[in-house]
């Protein structure tokens, strides 16, 4: 099937883009970046935007930069930019570990980091990274800029805090220190498929005990989020199997799992337990 008719607008600057979104955002206008989610659902006519604001030509959005402990990722930085560590140290390693779980190679050469964040699929790996590390989303509109914390950004399945006239121009990720350990685990039926459950964990060791634990769960609930109950089970404890099992069980007991044809609630809950424990074990390895 082919998409319903639409008008494509090609801004050269962020100001032009926000002007177009101010005009067309409320008239079924959508932002087109990598198009790896939007274009297929347009082809199925599940989405029928009347206007597409194609931001691929805005050079200022094709950059990432590190300023101190913040990594800023522009709106048209592709997934493939993370295949090799984009910054030195554990942060670059974390991102290049996660990126290989995102769909397939051709999709990663075109799809964008910020596009995944704005699309807010519950199974998106980047959304889990943003939620776990505590990213800030920078939105621009004619009304001015706005910074939205990850906790406030993801509202539900493909629902975010972004307004119709707003463009997600940048995501700011806090850079994890090189003393930070991280572990990621994803379960799906086939390589590249949407996650049925996944976990990203980070922590540091101080005197052999876990400090600053972060446990993020994605693919299981309507939005990715940190699980405070699991983090409490890690804080100040030694990095050993007993601790990991307690944290993983806390995560599984806390979540409100989605149900679909791949998985009922109980299977997903148990997969979260396994994903969280394996992510913790990978962090400890």
């Amino acid at each position, binding site marked *: 099937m082919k998409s319903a008719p639409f008008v494509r607008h090609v801004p050269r600057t962020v100001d032009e883009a926000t002007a177009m979104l101010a005009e067309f955002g409320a008239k079924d206008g959508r932002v087109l970046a990598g198009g790896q989610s939007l274009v297929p659902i347009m082809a199925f006519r599940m989405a029928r935007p009347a206007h597409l604001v194609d931001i691929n030509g805005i050079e200022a959005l094709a950059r990432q930069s590190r300023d101190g402990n913040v990594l800023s990722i522009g709106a048209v930085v592709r997934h493939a930019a993370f295949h090799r560590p984009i910054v030195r140290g554990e942060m670059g390693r974390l991102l290049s570990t996660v990126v290989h779980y995102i769909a397939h190679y051709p999709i990663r050469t075109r799809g964008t980091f910020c596009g995944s964040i704005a699309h807010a699929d519950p199974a998106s790996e980047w959304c889990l990274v943003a939620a776990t590390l505590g990213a800030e989303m920078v939105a621009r509109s004619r009304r001015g800029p706005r910074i939205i914390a990850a906790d406030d950004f993801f509202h539900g399945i493909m629902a975010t805090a972004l307004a119709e006239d707003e463009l997600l121009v940048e995501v700011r990720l806090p850079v994890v220190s090189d003393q930070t350990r991280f572990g990621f685990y994803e379960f799906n*039926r086939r390589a*590249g498929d949407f996650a049925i459950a996944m976990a990203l964990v980070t922590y540091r060791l101080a005197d052999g005990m876990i400090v600053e634990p972060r446990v993020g769960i994605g693919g299981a609930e309507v939005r990715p989020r940190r699980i405070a109950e699991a983090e409490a089970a890690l804080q100040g404890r030694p990095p050993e199997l007993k601790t990991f099992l307690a944290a993983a069980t806390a995560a599984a007991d806390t979540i409100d799992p989605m149900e679909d*044809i791949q998985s009922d609630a109980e*299977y997903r809950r*148990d997969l979260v337990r*396994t994903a969280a424990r394996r992510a913790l074990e990978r962090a400890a390895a």
Partner: protein
Amino acid sequence: MSASTKGSGMAWVGRSIRRLEDQALLTGQGRFTADPPAAHWVRVARSPIASGRIERIEWPPRSNVITAADLEAVKPIKPMLHKFSNACHVAEAADDVETGRVAVAEVAGSIINPMIVGGQVHGGIAQGIGNALLEEIVYDESGDILTSTLAEYLPSTAPGIAAIELHHMETCSEACVAKAKGVDECGTIGAPAVVINAVNDAISPFGVSIDEIPAAPRKIWAALRRTMEQRA
């Protein structure tokens, strides 16, 4: 998807099938090719050996032996000429008991075929592994299909197929000039059975088995969980 699955006979893999002629034969309605001359009592004997040579037949006094060659209506029986091939599959599976995931480590086939057709056999095996582990048509309680697109219906993809080792054996067919046989289905047909057997072997220490395809992770997980709860 559903049409091709049905068309290639996947619904019947692993099931017993009633023979069409049985009902008539069992109820005395069987029809024969010719009336044997002067028959009062007839006993039909069939060799249990598929392609043996009959050297001698013993019969009681005052009876007569009629072979197919004595009956005009029976056309000479030609050796069976077929153009399909045969295959033998071996699979190894390691099961992840926490998630139910199956990794097929090896599928080796023994193929009786005059041509080098590895690619076609690989494709068939990939499809068979999909039948065994992934492809499933799911309906909701009101009969609406839930797996109508390739987002929900999962065929095999390359990363999920293990390294396949093929061994070819050649037996030429007399049924066509090229003496060739088709090999398209020999990969597909054996793979589901052998993969399921391998899965069941892998989970047998837990006293459970899967008796339907696909052996989706959630089904294996549910079976394993039931036994673990019983043991706990």
